């Protein structure tokens, strides 16, 4: 082989060119392909309802007995495949009625009006503006949606540590101690169930808002519940808050709950 200096330099130069040309050609080819087939895109439904912070106003004056509350709870629990477990320790609840002194501890006086003392108060996840459950979650399975303030659960990530249940001052979260499937009377095929070992709670019907529907409980309430954007001064919820005296659950703990009660 002729190994003069000139030949070696020529060889090195050509090799260098060949090595660098390959990725460039590849990149060009990829770009051409890219031009031919458009990339898939992902977007929201055009009908989706939007807000900065979803909020709810519950007019407790309209609820007198369990019978007034039942259809709302049923509406929620049936579409979300919430199981009905008789054992209190295993119970799963997204929205449920409770007594005034449980809903508003610290606000219950020694003597109360008979009406208030006995009637049911609907409670659910407050979708706090400063949610302690989100801070407690070690896997970010529960998170606050930055665009509309809903405190969501990502069941895929939940490891069932239950820190969030301890952190929530409202007891809004339930743990699946058992496989929930056998306890769902009628499964809504459009919505997933949960599995043993995850925590669950109200999701403000994020799946319904995404297609332009109001939450199931609001729809079933016939006007007793109002839903809207807390930061839109023109919204229905703001109008109600402006014109009525409202209270929130455990306001002093600083979680800024987004569910308001007209009493």
């Amino acid at each position, binding site marked *: 082989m002729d190994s003069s200096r000139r030949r070696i330099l020529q060889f090195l130069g050509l090799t260098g060119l060949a090595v660098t040309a390959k990725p460039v050609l590849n990149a060009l080819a990829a770009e051409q392909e890219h031009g031919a087939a458009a990339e*898939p895109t992902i977007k929201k439904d055009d009908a*989706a309802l939007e807000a900065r912070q979803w909020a709810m106003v519950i007019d407790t004056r309209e609820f007198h007995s369990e019978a007034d509350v039942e259809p709302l709870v049923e509406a929620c629990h049936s579409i979300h495949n919430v199981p009905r477990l008789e054992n209190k320790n295993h119970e799963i609840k997204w929205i449920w009625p409770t007594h005034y002194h449980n809903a508003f501890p610290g606000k219950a006086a020694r003597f109360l009006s008979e009406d208030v003392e006995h009637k049911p108060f609907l409670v659910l996840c407050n979708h706090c503006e400063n949610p302690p459950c989100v801070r407690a979650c070690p896997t970010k399975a529960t998170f606050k949606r930055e665009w509309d303030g809903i405190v969501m659960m*990502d069941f895929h990530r939940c490891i069932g540590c239950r820190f969030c249940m301890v952190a929530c001052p409202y007891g809004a979260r339930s743990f699946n101690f058992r496989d929930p499937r056998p306890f769902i009377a009628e499964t809504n095929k459009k919505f997933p169930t949960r599995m043993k070992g995850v925590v669950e709670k109200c999701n403000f019907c994020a799946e319904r808002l995404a297609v332009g529907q109001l939450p199931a409980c609001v729809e079933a309430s016939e006007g007793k519940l109002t839903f809207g954007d807390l930061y839109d001064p023109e919204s229905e919820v703001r109008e109600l808050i402006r014109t009525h005296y409202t209270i929130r659950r455990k306001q002093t703990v600083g979680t800024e709950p987004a569910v308001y009660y007209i009493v």
Partner: protein
Amino acid sequence: MKDKKFIILGLIVFLVIVLFPFWYMRGKAAPKPEVVLTEKALAAKVCVRSTEFMRAEHMQLLDLWRHSVVRNGERIYVNPDGKQYNMSLSNTCLDCHSNKAEFCDRCHNYASVRPYCWSCHIENPKEST
């Protein structure tokens, strides 16, 4: 070196045991799984993406869908042809592929993968219980 024959015998026994799955199953490859398409899937002809893409990358696609829907609240997938799909395993995928046992399971069993999708997602959206 008087234990030479024991060592060699031991090595042979060891190799026979370790290679047991290979010589035992020699020439008997498990048959390739045959997936069955439902009439609806056949009529539709195309999936969300091309068949090759779906075959190779449906798990990445589903992972992307899960992330977009749950964490970003974005539920519509527009494929390269501009067609829109609701990103839902039970309501979109299983709408066409309503035969999970003959479609999903056959390959998954063959490849010995056990996705836990079905412990929450409804696997028979069409059937009435």
